[in-house]
């Protein structure tokens, strides 16, 4: 049964070493308020899954929470690279599992379905096969060899949305932008799903991305994706991003920002 909770209560569901999935894509729909709460708890050795990452990865790495980052991209698109992540990857203070979109999503889908693995038509011939120790199986129906990705279950998924209700129904994104439904796969692979919402309403009207059977915790968190964007609600704060990306000590900048309550 879905419960309404505070950010701090939701963050207490994470534990050291937990496998944490982060929703959103690039600079949109990132559950930054929830990530800030996780960082303030001081967790260590998290295995973080975030396919197209930006400030979410930066925050968790800067606060020392991450042991392994499972990702397909970390950066700020045309604005530049991710300085904290890049430095940590380079000096070996975090481990990085570089995934393709298919190796990442087939792992989530397998976990969501209780399957040990799922086949894919991607990544063949790339270095990811060795780096991720991907295996091949022979199609029992005779089409030849096929690559498979192992299930990658999550302990906790963190997702941000514009609207959810007290029964755990999460409204489908107001605007269908790039990979608008990707959080559904993330939630399905997780043992515990935490959804932060701009608004908690009595009843979500219209199409739903997630239902009450998928969601464990709902937290009201207005501005919960800021200073990144939430399509249909607000855009990314370009001034904040420019200031951050120009700062000569981004680790300190992010830690100070979190300590100050992530105020703009």
């Amino acid at each position, binding site marked *: 049964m879905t419960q309404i909770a505070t950010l701090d209560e939701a963050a207490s569901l994470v534990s050291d070493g937990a496998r944490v999935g982060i929703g959103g894509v690039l600079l949109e729909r990132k559950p930054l308020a929830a990530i800030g709460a996780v960082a303030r708890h001081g967790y260590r050795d998290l295995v973080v899954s975030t396919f197209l990452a930006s400030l979410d990865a930066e925050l968790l790495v800067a606060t020392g929470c991450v042991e392994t980052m499972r990702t397909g991209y970390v950066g700020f698109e045309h604005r530049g*690279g991710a300085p904290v992540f890049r430095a940590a990857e380079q000096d070996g203070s975090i481990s990085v599992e570089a*995934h393709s979109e*298919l190796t990442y999503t087939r792992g989530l889908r397998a976990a969501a379905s209780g399957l040990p693995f799922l086949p894919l038509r991607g990544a063949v011939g790339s270095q990811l096969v060795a780096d991720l120790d991907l295996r091949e199986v022979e199609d029992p129906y005779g089409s030849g060899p096929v690559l498979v990705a192992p299930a990658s279950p999550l302990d906790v998924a963190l997702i941000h949305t514009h609207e959810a209700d007290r029964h755990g129904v999460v409204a489908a994104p107001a605007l269908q*932008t790039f990979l608008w439904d990707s959080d559904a796969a993330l939630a399905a692979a997780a043992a515990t799903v935490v959804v932060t919402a701009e608004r908690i309403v009595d009843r979500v009207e219209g199409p739903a991305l997630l239902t009450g059977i998928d969601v464990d915790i709902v937290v009201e968190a207005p501005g919960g994706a800021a200073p990144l964007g939430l399509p249909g609600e607000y855009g990314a704060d370009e001034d904040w991003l420019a200031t951050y990306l120009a700062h000569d000590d981004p680790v300190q900048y992010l830690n100070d920002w979190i300590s100050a309550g992530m105020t703009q």
Partner: protein
Amino acid sequence: MRVADWMVWRLSCQAVPGDVIVVGVATPLALCAAFVARATVPGVRVMVGGAVDPEPHDIAETLYDPASLPARSHGVLGQEALLSHLQRGTFTLQFVSPAQIDASGQINTVRVTTPGGSRWLAGPLAIPDITAAVGRLAAYRAEHSQRVLVPQVDHVTGSGQQPAGWRQDYRLAGHGVQTIVTSQAEMAWNDGQYEVTSLAPGTSLADVRAGCGFALSDAVEAASPPDSFGELLESIDPSRVRDLEAGGGH
């Protein structure tokens, strides 16, 4: 003709009738080329970050306000639908911009080797998947140098052409990087190596070879875009956003 315009023209020339072209939202050269192809090649459809076949329009709008794209499109595919189409071979041409491309068409978007170790670039994104599953790839970089065109990539993010025939063993729809377009030349995969098929204005074959880290054969054909190309490009990108990827050079 400016560098960006020449690159857009050569990329657009990779399209054939009926192609389904995939581009990202933050790649102005690729977006321009896809829209030029859609306007000039019969039956071409364009996928922009999952948005289905938007009408060609000023790309500045899409780049700076991606949320405007759905209204110009015939729906937006979700991730699972997009990946299903990818795996069953719906997409026939994609423009990609890797940091390194090597002699066998392998591409790198993950990390490069540096004197002190290595440096993270961006990440694999869907590159390992599209090199296996999209019919043909055209790789582009404005920089024509031995830093980009290398004998062997530092990280095999996307698979190449060797050994010959390996893609058939896996029944892959993708044929890998068939064409490379830089500020100086277009190079096409042919008979086990890349050959120079077109030279940018003011560039010589010797320049192209000197800036490439692997051997190139040549079969250069002189050609120029139709008179309508400039007007079409002006309508797609009046503020020359494409120069962000190519520089503004002539």
